[in-house]
């Protein structure tokens, strides 16, 4: 009887486990194996050596690119949070008509159904030397000559990535703000506290899980991005995913690419771990 139950439980659990095993564990395991192989021009051969990892930690170019990628991911997440939060706040607490709220929410989320490339490409036409921004600045007389400072640099990448990933920031913040009972703000007000202090002491702390979730998603998505450097990045736009792509392509050095990919995975996993801690911290010990 007990055995049958155990068997049944195993059967119920096995499809998801199998799925996880096949599509998560196996690919990473293969990547791990590759990372110990060595390059033997023109391809690579099975081996067990740590040379790829040693190279990554000794050649400063990898450290520089990882640092640059982290920096860009941070600014993208920060920018997205600074824009998404007021927007989500406005939707949840200021827009009274449910249909209008839904429409404004969808206005942010709907672009997710449009190709990433198309959305990123849009910014090329906006920020370019002959682009919309320059035409606007010149027609309003703010500038007299088209400026090339908007496109093909890290700022352009950050702007584009903020635009591309902002739905991932709006969604969790919106969800968490919507769950905060209205009565909490009323209670704060009732206890003599003004709007700003109420926001800082009640709304903001309670929405930290949403900010952290959005920040983590945006950060990790940016961290793995390789399209924006290609489309709107300048000569200093290379990010870690581009380096990995070039190892799997141009350099035909899959072992090094695998090692880099695993280090990237480690970074992303630690970010997720830290963010979980942070989320709990934000909730206080009472979560």
């Amino acid at each position: 009887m007990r055995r049958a139950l155990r068997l049944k439980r195993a059967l119920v659990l096995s499809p998801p486990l199998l799925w996880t095993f096949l599509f998560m564990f196996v690919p990473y395991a293969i990547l791990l194996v590759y990372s110990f192989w060595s390059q033997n021009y023109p391809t690579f051969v099975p081996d067990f050596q740590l040379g790829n990892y040693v190279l990554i930690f000794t050649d400063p170019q990898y450290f520089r690119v990882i640092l640059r990628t982290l920096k860009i991911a941070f600014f993208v997440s920060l920018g997205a949070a600074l824009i998404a939060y007021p927007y989500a706040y406005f939707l949840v607490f200021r827009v009274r008509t449910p249909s209008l709220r839904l429409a404004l929410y969808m206005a942010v989320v709907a672009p997710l159904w449009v190709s990433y490339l198309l959305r990123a490409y849009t910014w090329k036409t906006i920020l370019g030397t002959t682009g919309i921004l320059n035409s606007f600045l010149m027609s309003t007389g703010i500038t007299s000559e088209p400026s090339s400072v908007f496109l093909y640099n890290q700022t352009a990448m950050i702007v584009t990535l903020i635009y591309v990933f902002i739905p991932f920031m709006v969604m969790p913040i919106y969800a968490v703000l919507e769950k905060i009972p209205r009565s909490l703000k009323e209670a704060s007000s009732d206890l003599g506290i003004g709007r700003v202090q109420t926001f800082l002491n009640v709304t903001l702390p309670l929405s930290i899980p949403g900010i952290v979730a959005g920040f983590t998603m945006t950060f990790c998505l940016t961290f793995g991005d390789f399209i924006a450097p290609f489309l709107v990045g300048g000569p200093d736009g290379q990010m870690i995913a581009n380096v990995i792509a070039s190892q799997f392509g141009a350099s035909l050095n899959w072992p090094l690419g695998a090692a880099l990919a695993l280090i990237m995975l480690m970074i992303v996993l630690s970010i997720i771990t830290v963010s979980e801690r942070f989320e709990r911290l934000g909730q206080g010990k009472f979560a």
Partner: protein
Amino acid sequence: MTNRLTLLARTSLTALCATSLASSALAGELNILTWEGYADPSVIAPFTAATGCEVSATYVGSNDDFAPKLAAGGGVFDIVTPSIDTTYSLIEAGFVDPIDISRVPAFNDIYEQFRTADGILKDGEVYGIPYAWGAVPFMYRKDKFDTPPTSINALWDPALKGRISLWDDKSALYVAARLNGDMNIYSLSDDELAAAEEKLIEQRPLVRKYWATAGELVDLYKSDEVWISNTWGGYQSGLLAADGIEVVEFIPDEGAEGWMDSNMIVAGTPNEECAYQFLNMAISAKGQEGVFKVNGYSSTNPVAAKEFMTDEEFSALHQDDPDYLNSLLLWENLGARLPVYTNAWNAVKSQ
């Protein structure tokens, strides 16, 4: 021809009935991994009509795409068209098969420099049939320069800050090395490579964007972002001219690299017969005319080229100028140095 008939006899009895029917009875399907413009319908449609071999093409964005695609899984592609710096690594990796020259009658019409190039030979066997060639010259917007640039150092000119572009490729190192006076660009020592890397890092603040695809460079010129860059000779300038943007190509004092693309047969292809038909077609007058008309590239087979080029065209493409051909630094396989070059280029971009 004998071989072919034997093969046919083995595989298809009906093919024996009439030689004229043989071709249409091939009915194979060729998957080719090649460059955009190399599988133009104007060439492919007559080929399919004549041989019955259906052709579907996949395009690469760079020579670096060939090996990973062939390494990733066999059985997909029958023909690849890598450049002369990549061919040998594919041979070494065993991705391609030797070619039976007796089945490619026009092979000996090809320029000698090309058909005896190191990159397509191994152990006395031929692995690639040269198809098209050209230079990697530089190009500038005519309206933006009072005095035409003649040297690579124009791309290091602070006055052109933000107007310079360079191909996002290890070839950037070739350019910088020549500026440093190192003409042995395919066998740079570590020190020379480091100097080239240094030079590129010095240039980087002036660069608007490293271009990755032909289309991207065209866009950069069209949207007035870039005034000077290197280019794939004849190709992008043609596209820009069609858009009314006048650019001038030039070979700088420091010389230019040359490239040459060859068709190769992927190891173990099940469509060998169609593959040979394709190889032959590619260097025939029809095939060579196609690559000239569509891409503006020079012909590897002067005998065939004479059939469709006017005399002016023939000399404009330097087809009758062995000195020009010899002056080009024809791309070479970097061999085991490739990762070092790639690494150096990545290091520039990581700055």
